[in-house]
């Protein structure tokens, strides 16, 4: 476990040195532009526009990082053979995977935290105050981070056995499918075929449910998000990530590094 921590910190350092956090500059510019323009074009709904735009930017930027870096986490190390010297040391393969996963999630957490700070700064600039209802924005940010952790786990699983291009396609495909899980569960009302209905029902439980993490509506209107949902989403993410990481470890621990 200690080795996983060492690998995680190095993965974080790699992201920082590869200038991944430079996206924050883009986010800052976007939010500054929004803060200046919003007062002129949206009378009375400044906060709604700012929160919607901010949360969407945090989510999209995070997803791009999670997918594009996640798919290279293991593949790049195998391709460049940088992990040969490492795996000859007392590091178990699952520790390496856990470290890579932890490192990218840490990077995303720092990135998301910085963007959230920027978002709150702009909300304060627009409203000249921060209210208790704004805590819903914080929960929405937390849910985005949970979603990103799940995406990283999936991207890393594919990274263990296929090329980055295919991994991007698989991860993006799963992410998009995961946005329609509720529709799959109500699919029986649309089809008379019991087999198709059973398949979509099973798929809806197997696929990662990314709809659970979408609380944008509550966040922009300052509605409180139930504590039960926070707990449920946290447990769901931990369990789903654990299953995906165990699968990745099972695949990677049998892999010959030619």
């Amino acid at each position, binding site marked *: 476990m200690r080795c996983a921590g*060492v690998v995680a910190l190095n993965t974080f350092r*790699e992201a920082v040195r590869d200038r991944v956090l430079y996206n924050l500059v883009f986010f800052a510019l976007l939010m500054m532009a929004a803060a200046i323009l919003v007062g002129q074009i949206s009378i009375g709904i400044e906060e709604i526009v700012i929160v919607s735009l901010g949360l969407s930017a945090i989510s999209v930027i995070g997803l791009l990082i999670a997918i594009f870096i996640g798919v290279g986490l293991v593949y790049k190390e195998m391709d460049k*053979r940088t992990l040969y010297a490492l795996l*000859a040391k007392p590091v178990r393969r699952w520790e390496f995977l856990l470290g890579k996963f932890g490192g990218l999630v840490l990077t995303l957490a720092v990135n998301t935290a910085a963007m959230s700070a920027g978002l709150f700064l702009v909300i304060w600039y627009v409203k000249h105050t921060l209210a208790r209802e704004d805590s819903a924005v914080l929960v929405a940010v937390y849910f985005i981070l949970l979603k990103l952790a799940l995406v990283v786990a999936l991207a890393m699983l594919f990274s263990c056995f296929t090329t980055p291009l295919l991994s991007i396609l698989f991860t993006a495909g799963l992410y998009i499918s995961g946005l329609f899980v509720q529709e799959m569960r109500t699919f029986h009302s649309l089809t008379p075929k019991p087999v198709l209905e059973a398949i979509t029902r099973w798929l809806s439980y197997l696929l990662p449910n990314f709809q659970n993490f979408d609380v944008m509506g509550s966040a922009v209107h300052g509605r409180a998000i139930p504590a039960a949902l926070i707990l449920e989403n946290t447990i769901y993410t931990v369990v789903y990530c654990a299953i995906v990481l165990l699968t990745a470890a099972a695949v990677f621990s049998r892999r010959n590094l030619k």
Partner: protein
Amino acid sequence: MAIETENLTKDYPFGFLNLKTKRSLEGLSMQVETGEIFGFLGPNGAGKSTTIKLLVGLIFPTSGGAHILGKPISDIEMHQNIGYLPEQPYFYDYLTAAELLDYFARIHNLTAADRRDRIARMLKKVGLETAGKIQLRKYSKGMLQRVGLAQAILHDPQVVILDEPMSGLDPIGRREVRDIILELKREGRTVMFSTHVLSDAEMLCDRVGVIVGGKLRGVGAPDEIVEMKAQGMEILFEYTGSGASAIALLSKATRAGNRYRLQVAEEELYGALEQLRSAEAKILSVTQLKPTLEEYFMHLVDGSRAQAAAVEVSGK
């Protein structure tokens, strides 16, 4: 026993759906004694790197097994006591050499003070003390090889396994690596290294193993496994005159500037020396010609290719 392999075999799948297999290593059984320098020789594709990767756990055997310091290679604890230099090593290029060594030292759970001390010592040992703070993306191939060597011995391992350690090094670098290997032996460590540079093996190894076509063809001390009988004598001399008595010999010699290299049978040596002396040639050296490890090695490689060709013909 430092390293022991038993019938170690590795097949690689290939083709559509990986349904076919190619045998890369076949029934390798050998031992490397504690404290010796063992050279693993073979041409490209012979199975040297496959064997080493099996030993350090990068690939898994199809059948057979191996032990290092009495522990099976599947035991993660075994890795505490081994050092490994990959062939043509490549490391995280965003790190400096000192940061990379610190990273590996942390993996070995060394204390902060110990890490600082060892990193400084290792960088000095491999001749990179002034380049420790430069990012590895700016390193040459030879410098990466030195960093690789430093990380392999950073944690004082009992067994050091080096895959082509001289590859990519200039003559000075090769000399330094040879010195490091000899120093490791003096410290009581076991060193196993693969190479296809036979002079390195002859110079350093207590014993060598020759592998060709995935099969071990011979193991022993370099001077044991080759025939020791002299095959002739070589005279190196300088000659600037035009003495008639030396002309006959000059026609048999190979020339480089004023220097000549002449090979004669052992019984003809004194006669040749007398002729050269009377022609006022300056004798620089006289060397006994013995079959080298290289000749032994080539003999095995040729034998293996002939055997493979025979199998192919009979198969057809």
